[in-house]
């Protein structure tokens, strides 16, 4: 999995930097398998759990009550969020995407870069490197075969810049310059690419403090092809938090999936999709701060204002 970065001391002052070292301290007692996700994360994250909430700008204060973290906001009965924030259907999401490329002449590269940066930024806000109990802030980024995977590659690169130790698993790579370029950029930043997926959930829990789910996005339809079926089965059994990019992979983009992945964080890009109404994790961020005002109006997105020059907005 690679040594700690050159020249940088091990964060937890352990003499052997190997991540497989079983005696490395984890603060929770007892078999990991018996602990629910909530307890595990609470023990693993600094007191207070949440990162400093820089998502609240002064102008947002009067809406604070409506934006207080509240699961019901995202429950199946919630039709809209703060200030009538709309949750998009799959067709709408695809239409907006198309319009950004054909009418507004954005390139896929541009938007993917901004999207990936948003994801890394949101992760850094919710799971700062200092909150990891693994000896390094190790993150596993699982990239799927399409654009969601591309978002994941960009995210991995920025996570590295932000002081994390990302590792990528990228089994199905499109034969296109965009993805080849992103892969090269990661490799040149010394981000390792796993030759195979960790065989068991327990191994992932041991090695990483967070998993980024960049497998499927808003274009996902139909059956899950291998190797992603097995990957998702494994991910459904891990106890470390999962941050999903745009759509929890395997979920129906509108209806969700009750017995599917249960991520702790969701980063909705551009605008949340209907699936987000079924999201029950702790952190829902909005990213992809590139939607022109005219497009927001055309689709009545009702996006809340982003704080200052931040590229992410914390919704819950």
């Amino acid at each position, binding site marked *: 999995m690679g040594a700690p970065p050159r020249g940088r001391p091990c964060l937890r002052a352990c003499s052997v930097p190997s991540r497989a070292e079983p005696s490395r301290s984890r603060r929770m007692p007892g078999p990991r398998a018996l602990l629910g996700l909530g307890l595990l994360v609470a023990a693993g994250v600094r007191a207070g759990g949440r990162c400093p909430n820089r998502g609240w700008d002064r102008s947002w204060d009067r809406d604070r009550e409506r934006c207080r973290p509240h699961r019901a906001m995202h429950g199946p009965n919630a039709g809209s969020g703060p200030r009538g924030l709309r949750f998009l259907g799959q067709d709408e999401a695809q239409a907006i995407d198309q319009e950004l490329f054909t*009418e*507004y*002449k*954005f*390139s896929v590269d541009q938007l993917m870069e901004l999207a990936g940066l948003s994801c*890394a*930024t949101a992760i*850094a*806000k919710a799971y700062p490197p200092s909150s990891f109990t693994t000896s390094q802030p190790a993150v596993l980024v699982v990239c799927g075969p399409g654009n969601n995977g591309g978002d994941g590659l960009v995210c991995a690169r920025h996570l590295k*810049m*932000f002081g994390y130790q990302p590792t990528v698993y990228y089994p199905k790579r499109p034969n296109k310059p965009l993805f080849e370029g992103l892969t090269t*950029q990661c490799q*040149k*930043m*010394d981000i390792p690419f796993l030759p195979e997926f960790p065989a068991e959930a327990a191994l992932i829990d041991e090695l990483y403090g967070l998993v980024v789910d960049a497998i499927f996005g808003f274009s996902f339809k139909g059956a899950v092809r291998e190797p992603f079926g097995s990957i998702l089965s494994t991910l459904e059994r891990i106890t470390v938090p999962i941050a999903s990019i745009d759509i929890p992979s395997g979920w129906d983009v509108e209806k969700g999936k009750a017995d599917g992945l249960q991520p702790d964080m969701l980063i909705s890009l551009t605008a949340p999709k209907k699936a987000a109404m079924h999201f029950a994790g702790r952190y829902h961020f909005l990213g992809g*701060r*590139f939607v*022109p*005002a*005219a497009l927001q109006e055309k689709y009545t997105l009702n996006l809340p204002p982003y704080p*200052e*020059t931040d590229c992410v907005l914390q919704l819950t």
Partner: protein
Amino acid sequence: IPVSSRQAFPLPSLPRKQPTVLVVCGPAQNGAIGLVCARHLRIFDYEPTIFYPKRSPDPLYRDFTTQCEKMDIPFLSYLPTEVQLINDAYNAVVDAVLGAEAEAAEGREPCAAILATLKHVRIPIVSLDVPSGWDVEAGSSGGISPDVLVSLSAPKQCARRFLGRQHFVAGRFLPYDVQKKFELNPPKYPGTECVVAL
């Protein structure tokens, strides 16, 4: 770049009622960066206006232009030579005319005329990478005096002669091996910020 422009001039502090900013874009890469900056300023709720007299034929840069147009960012058809008009209409000027790639006497018109005007504005100028018209290494000899300099990737030698209020570096995205190869010794960037004040 727009992030550092924002840090230098937070919205509430702007003297004019409308947060207007003039973005002057040259014909090459520096100008293209100016176009991207203008678009982000718009997203950040500023009111940018662009002056882009000599447009690059590069398809990527043409797309940047379209993106700005579709965001309802106006493009001036000429730059007033009457400096007071600029002082009155805008809070600040973003100088994206010439960057480090500019050769000494190459493609200077209409840049020379623009720079002559900018030299006399009294509102703050934010220069991208290199104050336009300055020699990349030696600095200025009677050229524009920006208030804020945003060095891209790493400061250029002429930045030593920068006398303005704030100097930012936007170079967080440089891969480590490039940093090492050129012995850049970049400063530490706070949190997830992409610019740092020097």
